[in-house]
């Protein structure tokens, strides 16, 4: 049932504007995460930190195919999705710091970052839990006769949990406008894919729901973007859900920044993937084919760095939540 990587061919050209957009989204994620990692190492951030670095092409490629009113649900590794969907650095860093100016008023932290005004329905601390929620968001769009779509991101490991299965089948049966994006980074925590399922391609699971699927190079933002654009168009047109498997890799450890110190993956494997770094790939290609100049791309990076510095300063200057407000937002009304 898996289509033979149609989106991975360079059939139709992508506009320079989109290339720069993809590049910018990726750079924003990379720098946001790298700085967050440093802050964590410096002991400035409480709690857990699941860095997205390495997987940027997926979030960027998909999100560039969406509108603001399209909805996404995310995972424990949610910063990349949030940044790519447009959530502000200020709210995000402030949240990581546990400040009242944060995206969750300091109540949620890294695993619950959201911005419902941008259709970011939250990172999620429970593996697989965001998947049915996206199906519900897609249901709501159709119910209201809107043509919005919903997108749910999840890992290879998450496809082993019941809620993935149930939600995929539900979406297929109800023919809902929802994209299932599996970011296959080869590991569920420290367990390689080969030990948690017998398949090579997670996309093969879509057939169990009568859902079409496609496999893309998850280090190639353009390939991801093409596949997502097609799937979004299909979903908007009422043709139902679609499964996209993006083969990708995370550079840091499962959690935190220490990374690469445990023998669950080889240095060689890490190096091989890093040699195809999604940002470098796109940059090289854009410079080679003249889509963008080095100055343009450098400028994106510089602007992003400035914005990050400002956001971190803002976060550090922000007040802590007031302990008198412990019961805030437990209930509505």
């Amino acid at each position, binding site marked *: 049932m898996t289509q033979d990587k149609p989106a991975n061919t360079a059939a139709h050209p992508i506009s320079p504007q989109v290339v720069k957009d993809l590049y910018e989204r990726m750079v924003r994620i990379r720098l946001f995460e790298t700085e967050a990692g440093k802050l964590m190492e410096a002991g400035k951030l409480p709690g857990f930190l699941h860095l997205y670095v390495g997987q940027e092409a997926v979030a960027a490629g998909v999100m560039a195919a969406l509108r603001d009113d399209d909805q996404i649900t995310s995972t424990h590794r949610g910063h990349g999705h949030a940044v790519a969907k447009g959530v502000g650095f200020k709210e995000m860093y402030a949240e990581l710091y546990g400040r009242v100016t944060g995206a*969750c*008023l300091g109540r949620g932290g890294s695993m619950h970052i959201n911005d419902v005004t941008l259709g970011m329905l939250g990172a999620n601390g429970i593996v697989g839990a965001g998947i049915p929620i996206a199906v519900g*968001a897609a249901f709501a769009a159709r119910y209201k006769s809107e043509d919005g779509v919903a997108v749910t991101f999840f890992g290879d490991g998450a496809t082993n949990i019941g809620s993935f299965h149930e939600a995929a089948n539900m979406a297929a049966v109800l023919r809902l406008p929802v994209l299932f994006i599996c970011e296959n980074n080869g590991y569920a925590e420290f367990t390689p894919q080969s030990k948690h399922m017998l398949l090579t391609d997670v996309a093969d699971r879509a057939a169990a729901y009568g859902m079409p699927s496609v496999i893309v190079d998850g280090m190639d933002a353009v390939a991801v973007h093409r596949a997502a654009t097609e799937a979004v168009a299909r979903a908007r047109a009422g043709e139902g859900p679609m499964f996209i498997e993006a083969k990708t890799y995370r550079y840091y450890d499962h959690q935190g920044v220490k990374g690469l110190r445990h023998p669950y993956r080889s240095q060689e494997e890490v190096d091989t993937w890093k040699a195809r770094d999604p940002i470098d790939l796109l940059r090289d290609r854009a410079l080679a084919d003249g889509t963008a100049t080095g100055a343009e791309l450098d400028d994106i990076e510089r602007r992003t760095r400035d914005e990050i510095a400002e956001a971190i300063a803002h976060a550090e200057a922000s007040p802590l939540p007031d302990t008198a407000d412990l019961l805030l*937002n437990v209930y509505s009304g």
Partner: protein
Amino acid sequence: MTTITEAPAPAPDGTARTLTYVKAFNEGLGQVMREDDSVFVAGEDVAGYGGVFRMFEGLLEEFGPRRMVDTPISEAALVGLGVGAAARGLRPVVDLMFMDFIGVCLDQIVNQAAKMKYMFGGAVSVPLTITTASGAGLGAAAQHSQSLEAWLAHVPGLKVVMPCDAYTAKGLTVSAIRDDNPVVVMLNKVLLGSKSEVPEQIYGIPLGQAHTARQGSDVTVVALGRMVGEALTAAAELAAEGVEIEVIDPRTVQPLDTETVIASVRRTNRVLVVHEAVTFGGLGAEIAAQIQDAAFDYLDAPVLRIGAPFSPVPFSPVLEKAYVPDAARIAQGCRRLLERS
């Protein structure tokens, strides 16, 4: 939408219409669907079949498949569908059929629906209603008979209602759907066919407000769900002995209207709490703990709890009857409380 709820007074002339519990639920649900297009129902066999308990009969015919949605047997995805749709502004009514099935989808209820508003810094509300049938008494055995309100009432962000008759089945359901929070409506299986007076127009019953079902001065009985009827039976029996029982139906166990209970206990000085769930760790523990705290100097006897013994629900009717509290045990409990000087 805020919860504007007004319970009309039952017709004083006694001519008013009676309805069964399940039909009252159905009528309230239909009325709120008529008034608000954002309300839809999803669940297993809720549409085409009208629900295995006939809870949804006629609704597909009136509202069509857009608003009455049959789903696969996938409770986690079903509740998740409700969470996502609620976060996007709809008012889903998701049916869990038997409350005992909650273990396959509790994460969506507890970690998603209940916590989303809080974790998101207030950015979103989850006006989700979950309907389900609870309770023993039909020989349905250990996996189809439980009353698990104590789990849910322990979860910040959730509300839980337990209708005791047709009147409250309708009014609490309407209020649950209108409420901006996730609310679990625990219908009682044994009561489905029981009748009481039910006004025809739409009405809500305020959540978090207890109802004094009978006034009395000697003992307060706080009864949950189906136990309200049993307590009233016990009260009638005791009245013949010259003992006046006050029966309080909290209606909502989260939030719990402790004030009404405490005010009563301060007058009666004796109190018994009764529910179907096992006693250990049941809601009766919370109610007892609050009472002994708030009415310590008013109690002439310890708060007495009556619940099921600490075992799964037995199948054999003879055991099941001995297992579930009833009017006789409540009356006995009241007598014991009164013996204590």
